[in-house]
């Protein structure tokens, strides 16, 4: 069981550090790479949660397809620097009043979260291992194509709409 905790902290650490790097990096290429590292951490967590199919889907879809799309766009636009300097002045959040109010609200939120966390009791209760995990692909498929049939079909329409939309939006308009 100890190795389980070790792995949790390892993967969780990779995930959180990756996520932090995404937000703090200046160069979008590095941001994309950090988020991929983060996704690998998440995939490890899914394996720990006995959901190997989700873990692999995470790698294939997120890391293998969506992030390649991001990287492709970054490289295509060749916009690897954040051009912040010239716009900073006009940003409303940079006005002192807004910053102060926002800061107070953020501190309040953090306090509230800490208070709520300190009062919950069930935080340390281990995951119920008596309930068997559902990790077989067969079972996943069965539920997906029976109980979630409608949602599944609607998703395909969403994909088509997104595809058409993306093609039309990114197309060069020749006037």
């Amino acid at each position, binding site marked *: 069981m100890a190795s389980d905790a070790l792995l*949790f902290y390892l993967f969780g650490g990779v995930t959180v550090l990756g996520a932090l790097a995404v937000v703090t990096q200046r160069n979008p290429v590095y941001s994309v790479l950090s988020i991929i590292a983060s996704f690998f951490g998440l995939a490890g967590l899914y394996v720990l949660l006995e959901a190997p199919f989700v873990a692999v889907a995470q790698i294939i879809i997120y890391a293998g397809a969506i992030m390649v799309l991001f990287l492709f766009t970054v490289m295509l636009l060749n916009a690897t620097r954040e051009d*912040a300097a010239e716009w900073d002045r006009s940003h409303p959040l940079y006005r002192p009043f807004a910053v102060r109010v926002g800061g107070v609200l953020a501190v309040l939120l953090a306090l509230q979260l800490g208070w709520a966390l300190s009062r919950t009791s069930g935080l340390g209760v281990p995951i119920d291992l008596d309930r068997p995990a559902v990790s077989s692909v067969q079972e996943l498929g069965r539920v997906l194509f029976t109980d979630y049939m409608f949602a599944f079909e609607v998703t395909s329409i969403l994909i088509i709409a997104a595809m058409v939309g993306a093609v039309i939006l990114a197309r060069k308009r020749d006037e």
Partner: protein
Amino acid sequence: MPLGHYLVLSGLLFAIGTAGVFLRRNLITLLLSVELMLNAVNLAFVAFGRQWGAVDGQIITFFVMTVAAAEAAVGLALVIGLFRHRESLNPEAFTSLKW
């Protein structure tokens, strides 16, 4: 591992994603932060699914992934379109309603 640990991790990820959306001024990083938030939710779903021995937690993640893919495709198409007009990825550059 206790379920609570997974939920705290998920909350942490979501917070980082939210912070990214508010603090960064690069359209690509904004989209990446949104992806982080979606993934935080996924983690919570799978953890809950494991806790109750239910398959639904994993199923929902597939729908979230599909939505994320659609969102990324349309979002990046928009980014490319905007970049063509202003040569910038800063959301502040796109404040005019018409050009």
